[in-house]
């Protein structure tokens, strides 16, 4: 009898998540006695609730959820608890009280990514004046909120660094490209661009290139360390932050599988962020 | 300034539209309880004047309107209705998806608590309709009601507002003779209740039959008011057009040539069955019948708009296959449709664009349409048909009804058709313009074109046609020659005069049969 794991996912149009899904399906193919079903909430929390309902109605053996936002975990946990289905949350850490109703968590704290990213910039500036512009993801997304928050926490501690602009790049390279063009025109003094993800960071560096700026003029940093971004590392992109998508996917699936079989698992499973600078390019490229 | 004899007085009322001074210091006084005809050429400003009364247009500064002696400045129709005014607009377009009763009570629904009392509304609608002699199922959706019935319903609705003054803007354009008589009856009944009526019409007959007084406006200016009994038709025409003119069109004869169009056993089940006729070069072929006889359907089928199911059409003796209007246009057949709004106008496009649409090729230079060429042609048509419009670039929706019709006729004249089909071509057209259009039709005939004309105006058919086919309930009752045709015979046949079914192949035979039939009955 195969075990069925229901896996409501927030978006199938997100690059980083697509590697996470790869991790999940790797686990799925490696284990013949489990069937993992993914659904796409299209970034709509309400759609995610529907997906959870549907899996509960279909009597799955465990739920493996990457939530659209952390607030939605509360009703998900309630529903899972009522139906007696074990629940694993991946990648986005809900608050403590909600965690009481969650069986296991795999991932990190998003704010860490922002902090690591900002600290790398502090290092690169090395005391020089930093005029920072922040490219944010879709407003309201968990990663947008926390990564931006992490950035600002660090920058606030350094008097040489000032955040002079922030806009919504919607995780989108093209949108970020356009915004950066406008920024570079309006604020020539910008010398740091921090993006909530790598796609937007790439957009920023393309804009810089189009504006005739060189790598030295601008510090650009992203998050995700996706293969494309790694290609640009050292060629415009100065740092990015790695968080193992495959590892989280595979690890989350494994824990959900164990829970489905009734085995005991560790509740908190941390996967830390790692700063990736030019030197580590090859190392991280080999992970894909 | 006020006089208790008058229900309505308009003093120095003007209205300017962009590019058009539609009304220039017009005066109009309507006696209580009288039927007051309002006449004038197309675009004279009649509808505009009435729309001002109804709160649809705001007049220019400087004029005054008194209703029942009180100053009257309606901001919206609801103000007019509350004051005691009702209107049957020129272009009625009821809410197609509401029932007859719902349309009847639109804006003043009967309620039981907060809900609509549909039963009561049905009952009362029925009552009013019965009183006025307009039999109609009140639950029917308006989309299934014929234009004529809708017109009568609109009048009944206006009556039921308990208004003191009802405006009827060309109420008979969509009606045939018999329904017109029904309308007369209704109008007189309304007058008996002490309600005054402003009756706009282009038809002299109606005006002399119904009205107590008649006022004329020309080019937006007030010309005068006369007691109907004090004026002759000729004098009235003179007031309207500013010159002498015959009321009855006298056509000249033209040589009739070989057969051009032959229609054989044309059928569209449910609409018309087994229609046979021929039209020769230079011939004007009329089609008569009551509303719903299927005349429009026959010509629509010939043109390929709503193709027939069986039957053949021959042009120059050769069988042609017309499946869509483009095929007909290819064969140089033109078609002025019956319903201006539905199948005629492109309301928010210019006069030029409306004219040139069927055939753009002549206006192309190096594969591109030349605006200049198109405007030139449109302008010459404008002059030829005396279309009243500021420019040919004006949006056609801003033209008066009659002028819109002229544009549509111009559209098909530009095609230089071999065969021109006209379905109710002079609907809403003034006397002067009518004569011009008749002249044009005869001129086309002289050039060897064939004309098919569907009309509910008996005089029009009788004075224009060489032969007239009469239809009744989708059947061809018979074809009569111009010399033998009289109003009575045609009406008789149209009412379903009991003609034996004819499977004859020879046209002439059928015709003579009908003639006898018409004579004897």
């Amino acid at each position, binding site marked *: 009898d195969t075990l069925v794991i229901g896996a409501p*996912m927030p978006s*199938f149009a997100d690059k980083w998540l697509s590697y996470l899904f790869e991790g999940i399906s790797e686990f799925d193919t490696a284990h013949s006695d489990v069937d993992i*079903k*993914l*659904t*796409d909430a*299209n*970034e*709509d*929390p*309400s759609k995610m*609730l*529907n*997906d959870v*309902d*549907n899996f509960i*109605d*279909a009597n799955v053996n465990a739920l493996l959820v990457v939530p*659209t*936002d*952390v*607030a*939605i975990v*509360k*009703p998900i946990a*309630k529903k899972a608890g009522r139906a007696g289905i074990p629940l694993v949350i991946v990648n986005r850490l809900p608050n403590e009280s909600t965690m009481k109703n969650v069986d296991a968590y795999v991932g990190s704290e998003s704010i860490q990514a922002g902090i690591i990213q900002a600290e790398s910039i502090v290092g690169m500036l090395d005391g020089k004046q930093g005029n920072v512009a922040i490219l944010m993801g*879709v*407003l*309201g997304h968990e990663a*947008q*909120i926390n990564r931006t928050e992490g950035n600002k926490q660090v920058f606030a501690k350094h008097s040489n660094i000032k955040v002079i602009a922030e806009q919504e790049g919607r995780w989108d390279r093209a949108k970020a490209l356009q915004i950066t063009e406008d920024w570079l025109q309006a604020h020539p003094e910008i010398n740091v661009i921090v993006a909530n993800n790598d796609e937007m960071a790439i957009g920023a560096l393309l804009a810089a290139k189009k504006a005739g700026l060189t790598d030295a003029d601008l510090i650009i940093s992203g998050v995700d360390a996706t293969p494309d971004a790694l290609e640009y590392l050292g060629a415009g992109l100065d740092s990015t932050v790695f968080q193992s998508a495959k590892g989280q996917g595979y690890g989350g699936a494994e824990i959900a599988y164990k829970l489905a079989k009734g085995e005991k698992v560790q509740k908190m499973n941390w996967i830390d962020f790692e700063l990736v600078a030019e030197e580590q390019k090859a190392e991280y490229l080999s992970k894909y | 300034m006020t006089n208790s004899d008058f229900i309505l007085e308009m003093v120095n009322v003007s209205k300017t539209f962009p590019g058009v001074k539609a009304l220039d210091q017009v005066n109009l006084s309507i006696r209580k309880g009288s039927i007051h005809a309002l006449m004038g050429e197309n675009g004279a400003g009649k509808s505009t004047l009435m729309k001002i009364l109804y709160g*649809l247009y705001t007049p220019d500064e400087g004029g005054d309107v008194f209703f029942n002696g009180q100053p009257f400045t309606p901001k*919206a*129709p*609801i103000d007019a*209705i509350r004051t005691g005014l009702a*209107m049957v*607009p020129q272009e*009625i*377009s*009821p*809410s*197609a*998806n*509401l029932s007859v009763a*719902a349309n009847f009570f*639109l*804006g*003043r*629904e009967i*309620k039981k608590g*907060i*809900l*609509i009392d*549909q039963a009561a509304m049905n009952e009362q609608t029925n009552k009013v309709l019965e009183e006025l002699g307009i039999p109609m199922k009140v639950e029917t959706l308006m989309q299934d009601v014929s234009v004529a019935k809708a017109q009568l319903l609109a009048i009944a*609705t206006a009556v039921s507002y308990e208004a003191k003054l009802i405006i009827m803007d060309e109420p008979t354009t969509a009606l045939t003779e018999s329904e017109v008589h029904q309308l007369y009856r209704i109008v007189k009944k309304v007058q008996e209740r002490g309600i005054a009526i402003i009756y706009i019409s282009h038809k002299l007959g109606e005006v002399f039959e119904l009205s107590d007084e008649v006022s004329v406006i020309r080019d937006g200016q007030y010309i005068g008011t006369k007691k109907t009994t004090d004026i002759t038709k000729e004098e009235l025409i003179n007031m309207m057009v500013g010159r002498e003119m015959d009321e009855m069109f006298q056509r000249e004869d033209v040589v009739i040539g070989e057969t051009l169009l032959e229609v054989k056993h044309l059928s569209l*089940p*449910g609409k018309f069955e087994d229609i046979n006729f021929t039209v020769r070069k230079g011939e004007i072929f009329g089609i008569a019948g009551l509303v719903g006889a299927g005349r429009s359907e026959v010509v629509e089928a010939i043109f390929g708009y709503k193709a027939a199911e069986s039957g053949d059409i021959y042009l120059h003796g050769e069988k042609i296959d017309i499946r869509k209007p483009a095929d007909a246009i290819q064969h140089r057949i033109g078609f002025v449709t019956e319903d201006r709004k539905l199948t005629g106008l492109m309301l928010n496009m210019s006069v030029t664009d409306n004219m040139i649409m069927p055939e753009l090729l002549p206006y192309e230079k190096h594969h591109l349409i030349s605006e200049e060429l198109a405007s030139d042609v449109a302008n010459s048509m404008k002059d030829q048909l005396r279309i009243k419009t500021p420019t040919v670039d004006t949006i056609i929706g801003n033209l008066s009804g009659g002028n819109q019709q002229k544009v549509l006729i111009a559209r098909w004249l530009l095609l230089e058709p071999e065969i021109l089909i006209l379905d109710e071509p002079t609907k809403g057209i003034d006397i002067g313009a009518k004569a011009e259009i008749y002249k044009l039709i005869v001129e086309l005939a002289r050039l060897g074109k064939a004309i098919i004309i569907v009309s509910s105006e008996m005089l029009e058919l009788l004075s224009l046609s060489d032969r007239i086919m009469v239809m009744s*309930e*989708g059947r061809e009752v018979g074809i009569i020659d111009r010399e033998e045709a009289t109003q009575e015979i045609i009406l008789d046949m149209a009412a379903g005069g009991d003609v034996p079914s004819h499977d004859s192949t020879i046209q002439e035979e059928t015709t003579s049969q009908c003639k006898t039939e018409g004579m004897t009955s």
Partner: protein
Amino acid sequence: MIKSANNSMRKTSYTEILNKYGMLLILILLFSALSLKIDGFASFRNIFSILEQVSMFGIIAIGVTFAIVTGGIDLSSGAVVALASVVGASIVTGTEGYGMTIFAFGAAMFVGSICGLINGTITAYGRIPPFIATLGMMTMARGVAQLVSNGRPVDASSDAFTSIGDSAIFGVPSLVIIYVLVAVTCHIMMSRMSFGRHVFAIGGNVNTAKICGVNVEITLLKVYILAGALAGLAGAMLTSRAYAGNPTFGNMWELDAIAAAVIGGTSLAGGVGSVPMCIVGALIIGVMNKGLNMLGVDPYWQQIIKGMIIIGAVLLDAQKRKKA
């Protein structure tokens, strides 16, 4: 002649039935097909679950139907859901008791009504196309929602409030009950009250409506306020179901709502539409969503199939009518 008339009468009623109930037939077919494929799809529990999932955008679709019947449209409803959810959550969070719950629902509907009032005013008095008015409002309402919430989900921790989204009465989820109540009320408004008549009249022919003394502006105002209030209500319902308000809520819901209305036979040209058929339209979307998920169809393919089903349903319906 009499024979043929009879004939056409029969034809009419047959067509009319297809016209009216064609989509219902398609819904039943879809549901039956999925029931054969999926165990437990044809259970009460599953049906209620579908209804619950549909209830929120279904309520929006009802408001949108009114707007479409007047010949207008409402693109702002999804954003209004977000705004109302944030406002509702801010009010209710940390409170207790049903008093505050009712107040929060009321506030959400009020906020929605204000958005609707603005839409209506711009459309009716400014005479600008409702497409643009509500498109502008869509952007604005989402902006305000983010401003109010600082771009973050707002916790709606109140047991009374969240119980609305969780509880069931005699096995029927509360949200479904709200949906049914709204639907019945709106159906009566649309079909049995003079307001509804005027809505149809405006969509049928706005000039005629004016001439008949219908106050077109006020009626349009009411329509958009109603649509806004219903979007607000949906926002409150979603908040109680999700235990939080969120400025990202309701993204693209307006399109689903419009699709539901149109699938239900509402004509975008105005003058035609009904609440029951709008529910059928919403259910077709809901059944399809649930079915595809339960079948475990690949999410990419889900979108493709979803698009095909929407087009297919409307196409089938149109073909049927043509033939009949």
